[in-house]
């Protein structure tokens, strides 16, 4: 494993993409940064600009308005960039599947980009951290 890759796995800065979620997954993501879980222990920071991001945490079922913005944000992120689908809605559209307001699921919108799926409504912070760790592991295997 090269130095570049090792540094990337040691400092995954995350960017929070809320694509029309009900806010529960968003709160659980923020819980990861709070004292009980504190993902800064692993070098992860919540960044304000997508240009600084190494991982996009996408929540929500992506309606027609937000889908194109998610695609745009992914294109704006500097590569290599991980994409994590946080919550059942982001994974497979959950109970909103088949709704007239939705387009395609996240992994069809960004083919090949989604590295980890974290199901749950909302997923526990432990699950989100586990998803991030697994996503970083796939990076090491490459």
């Amino acid at each position, binding site marked *: 494993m090269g130095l570049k890759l090792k540094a990337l796995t040691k400092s995954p800065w995350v960017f929070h993409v809320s694509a029309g979620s009900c806010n529960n997954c968003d709160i659980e993501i923020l819980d990861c940064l709070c004292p009980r879980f504190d993902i*800064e222990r692993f070098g992860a920071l919540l960044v304000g600009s997508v240009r600084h991001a190494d991982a996009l945490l996408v929540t929500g079922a992506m309606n027609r308005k937000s889908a194109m913005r998610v695609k745009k944000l992914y294109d704006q992120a500097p590569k290599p960039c991980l994409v994590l689908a946080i919550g059942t809605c982001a994974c497979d559209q959950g109970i909103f599947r088949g709704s007239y307001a939705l387009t395609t699921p996240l992994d069809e919108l960004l083919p090949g980009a989604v590295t980890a799926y974290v199901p749950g409504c909302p997923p526990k912070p432990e699950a989100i951290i586990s998803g991030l760790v697994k996503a970083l592991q796939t990076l090491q295997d490459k």
Partner: protein
Amino acid sequence: MTANFFIALLRFLIFPGLLFTAVVGLVMSWLDRKVTARVQWRVGPPFLQPFYDIVKLLGKEVIVPAGGSRMAFLGAPLVGLAGATLAATLIGTAAIYGGGGGFRGDIIILLYLLVLPSLAVILGGAASKNPLASVGASREMKLLMGYELPFILVMLVPIIQSGGMLSLGNLLSFQAQHGSFAASLSGVVALVAVLPCLQAKLALVPFDQAEAETEIMGGALIEYSGAPLAVFKLTKAMMLFTAPMFLVVVLWGGFGQTLGSALLGIGKYVALLVLVILLRNTNPRVKIKHAVRFFWGPVTALALIAVLLALVGV
């Protein structure tokens, strides 16, 4: 001639310039994050975290925004880095070699060099063609005009007290003979007045309006990615070393020549830094107009009092 040139180059690139300042600055930025985490009852990042961050950013893709000025956008971080490095070199050389390390008027040059990192943020933000970056750049400019006035006034105090000495080396030897300026009344007032200026120079809360992460998404740095962002982060870390060091040397007696006084000097620097970190963690970000009003009002008044006291001779 060539030997002198190589010594100067070594001082600039290795010790006490780029390499040394970068390593110490990154360690200090770890201290900043760790103390912040402990204040918030978190565990905080591991010791090597700032180094991982810089290496990672160097390996990432560099994006230049369409329509932005490519040269200014990529050149600005280097301007800031060069300014911070040169300032660290001058301060470190004077601190180590005493009177022999500086030259007449280097304190004035240092005042200019310490502005360069902020100027680089303004330049880079304005070159990126992003409205939020423009907001950040404009705020940085206002903040700069706000805190530079009391900062320069405070720098008059040691010059007046020493009877017009304009070189860091001479100021240090003067302090070695007559005791540090911070021991006098005007020196204490000056140190109190310069503390908020230091906070603003390091762009830390409550004066981080230009980079407000939660408000304007990184402000002037919003469009930066990869290596240029790494250079900005490095410059900021180096300023964490350079700016408090400048105050320790100019106002607080420096490092002396013996081991004991050197340790005392390092203790002063760490004390100043921890004070800055605690201020950052116990204050909210203020609006830019309040920041400017604060600097041009009470802080400038305090700095003026310090200058008057120095003129009277206490």
